[in-house]
């Protein structure tokens, strides 16, 4: 365009890869809790997803004739892979992870123009696609605290779908708390009965996982890698709407705390919904976007067909982003306050 390089002439302050690496670091505490409660499954999924993501990214860059190095180094594909792996059940067969990741990277990211141009969060597109296509595999969570399910057992299942001797699929998998609450409420049980009956440790695991993602997320806000508006809007709106519904029927509606600390709430609020490329970018728009996600999350969990709704809530709001951004432009300097 212009012949001369234009101002400012200052050294680079930051880079996309630094930001992505920070996100990956912030995911570590949550991931460790996964490892502690659910064994190696998630870690194995993560490795498979990472390999797939890098391979697909490289392939697509090659096909689209983009320089490999800077784009592979930006780390965005790695973040997509890790987020998807964290959302997948512990007992996911390898092909599930591969298909989900490849779909996310190839279709949701590169066919839309690659980094910066994709309107939908690639990890969530991959997840949603899997959930629709393979509902059984997508709900195969190992209950926490099975000490005798070793790394090799996990690996064997992931690669060959073979369970250790003497175990069958239904006996070792179990629904997540959200799932459980949903089906049990459908069977006319009260919240108290459900919570009382469900295995405490399992709930505790999800509580811890969410707590750790909350911690990692706050760290990211502190490091200014993500903004505070979107997570806050999601959590507050989820809290408010679940309180409103829980007050009249505490027996039939899970408490707000239950919503905040189960499923992918914190992962979604701090790591998925804040993906800058697909989120709203104006300050007011970010509040609207976050509230939309929080409310949709509750709606899908309570009345929808799926136990958790992070993926769909985020994708639906992704769709609304261009409109939100257009109508929430900040007041320009000197413009009358309205």
């Amino acid at each position, binding site marked *: 365009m212009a012949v001369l390089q234009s101002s400012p002439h200052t050294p680079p302050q930051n*880079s996309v890869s630094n930001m992505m690496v920070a996100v990956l670091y912030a995911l570590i505490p949550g991931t460790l809790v996964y490892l502690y409660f659910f064994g190696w499954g998630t870690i194995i999924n993560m490795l498979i997803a990472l390999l797939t993501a890098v391979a697909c990214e490289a392939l697509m860059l090659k096909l689209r004739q983009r320089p490999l190095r800077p784009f592979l180094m930006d780390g965005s594909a790695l973040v997509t892979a890790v987020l998807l792996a964290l959302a997948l059940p512990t007992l996911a067969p390898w092909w599930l992870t591969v298909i989900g990741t490849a779909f996310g990277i190839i279709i949701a990211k590169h066919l839309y123009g690659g980094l910066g*141009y994709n309107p939908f969060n690639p990890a969530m597109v991959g997840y949603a696609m899997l959930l629709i296509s393979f509902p059984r595999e997508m709900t195969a969570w190992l209950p926490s605290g099975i000490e005798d399910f070793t790394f090799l057992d996990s690996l064997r299942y992931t690669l060959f779908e073979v369970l250790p001797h003497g175990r069958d699929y239904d006996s070792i998998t179990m629904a997540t708390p959200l799932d459980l609450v949903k089906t049990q409420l459908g069977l006319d049980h009260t919240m108290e009965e459900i919570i009382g009956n469900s295995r405490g440790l399992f709930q505790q695991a999800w509580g811890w996982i969410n707590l750790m993602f909350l911690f990692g997320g706050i760290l990211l806000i502190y490091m200014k890698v993500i903004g505070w508006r979107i997570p806050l809007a999601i959590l507050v709106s989820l809290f408010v709407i679940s309180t409103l519904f829980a007050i009249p029927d505490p027996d039939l509606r899970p408490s707000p705390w239950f919503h905040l600390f189960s499923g992918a709430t914190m992962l979604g609020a701090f790591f998925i919904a804040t993906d800058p490329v697909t989120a709203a970018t104006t300050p007011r728009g970010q509040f609207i976007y976050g509230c939309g996600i929080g409310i949709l999350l509750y709606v899908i969990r309570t009345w929808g067909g799926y136990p958790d709704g992070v993926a769909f809530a985020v994708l639906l709001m992704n769709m609304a982003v261009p409109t939100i951004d257009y109508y929430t432009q900040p007041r320009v300097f000197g*413009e009358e306050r309205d």
Partner: protein
Amino acid sequence: MTSQRLWHFFGGLRLAGHKAMSMKEPVKAAPIPKQLVIPVQQHIGSAAEPIVKPGERVLKGQMLARATEYVSAPIHASTSGKVVAIEERPVPHPSGLPGLCIVLESDGEDRWKELQPHPDYTELDPSALRNVIRDAGIVGLGGAGFPSFIKLNPGPDNSVDTLILNGAECEPYITCDAMLMQEHPRRIIDGLLIMKHALRAKQCIIAIEDNKKVAHTLLVNALHEHEAEFIKIVQIPTIYPTGGEKQLIKVLTGKEIPSHHLPINLGIICHNVATAVAVADAVELGKPLISRIVTFTGELLSKPCNLEVLIGTPFSDLFDFCHYQPKESERILMGGPMMGFIIPDNHIPVIKTTNCILVQDKQKTSRPPAMPCIRCGRCADVCPARLLPQQLYWYAHAKDFDKVQDYHLFDCIECGCCAHVCPSNIPLVQYYRFAKTEIWAQEREKKKADLARRRHEFKLFRLERKKQEDEARKRRKKALLQKAKDTGGTEKDSKKAEIEAALARVKAKREQQSRQRKNVENLTPQQQQTIEAVEERRRRLRNIGTTESTDKDSD
């Protein structure tokens, strides 16, 4: 005096100052160069027009080129000597294009023309003051270079409440204003008083960033007791770009100047501290603006410093004086790192707006290739104009010039904050400049096309009218003939009437032509040239008009 309430503006950056290195020593006078290259355009507005010829001898301070229009400023000889050429030379401009310059060979005598000082400015009324300031070629020395006398003319409908002297100097590395405030605090106040008189301003504020404590103290000390009643000297937080006019006004008064408005609409006028000194020199000493302080700095220099430089001194002369040899690995900027531009040639001259020459290590200040925008919004968090730089970029990139204006492109002050923080290292400001230039060009084209269309429409109208007139004439003639027949009168009468009418028409036409021609006699060659140029443009426009009309026909 210090308990002034302050506001703050949105966004901005806290940048490392890098100012101390060039403030260790007092301002040194740079030597008179052998040859000075003085561009005729050193300001915003139309270029000055040379009034000297090659070969002519001139005295220091003598006018070399005069202001052509209202928004323009004259140019003066920075030393005595001989004009050797008037030609295109490389000039300091972001576009990198050359410009017309008056090349002056100094005779070493540095002999002043006869000066006309006005020791007591109160004897001059505001309009006379403005003329003095205009003739001295004073323009805003803070960077933009807008002719100062215009900003000393509030106009009949405005009254000035607050006159602000901008001593913020918010860009890193630049220290010329800080040095000036330290070395000549009283001169600044003298200039301020003159400006206040010209504007009939009620109160004055001198604003200084709080990283220039020394300058602040010295200015406060230089203030006479009774002056403190109407002059406040205020320290403001060091946040880039607090020296931007709109930002500074916001900080000091809490008022935001709406886009497309001027501070004067809110009763505020803003001038730079160095401009105030130039005004004092022009009025009290009669000296035109022929020199300025330039910061020559950068980590790579052995001795960064501030120099008092004659306008027109080539950069290379300053380099020699400071024993600096440019290297391939270095980059030389005019201005600071945030808003300065790379100079195309080491021989370009110092002009009225050259506040700083900054030498940078190319490697340390170059950015890696740009990545796509990830919409992280950091740019929007720091934009002092509260724009959405990412959206501006998106639409500028897509050349969607309507949308880019919807997002307030023209409120962008090109401060560079957004590009500074962008993790994708996108040269955002470059895109905004590009979009602005394109839009201006399109608008010019559109105006031209509109004119052509109007001409074409007028032509059609004229043809139509002619047709109607012809018909009317025929009808009239017929009617006359008819009448003649009817009344049984001779044909002679009607013929006579017709001849008379024709004569009257010819006479009218002749008169009209002579009216048109009236100004065409006694033209200077230059006027003739202008007229020819105009004609040429018209011809071209007509061509556009005809092609357009054929387009229309084929539709």
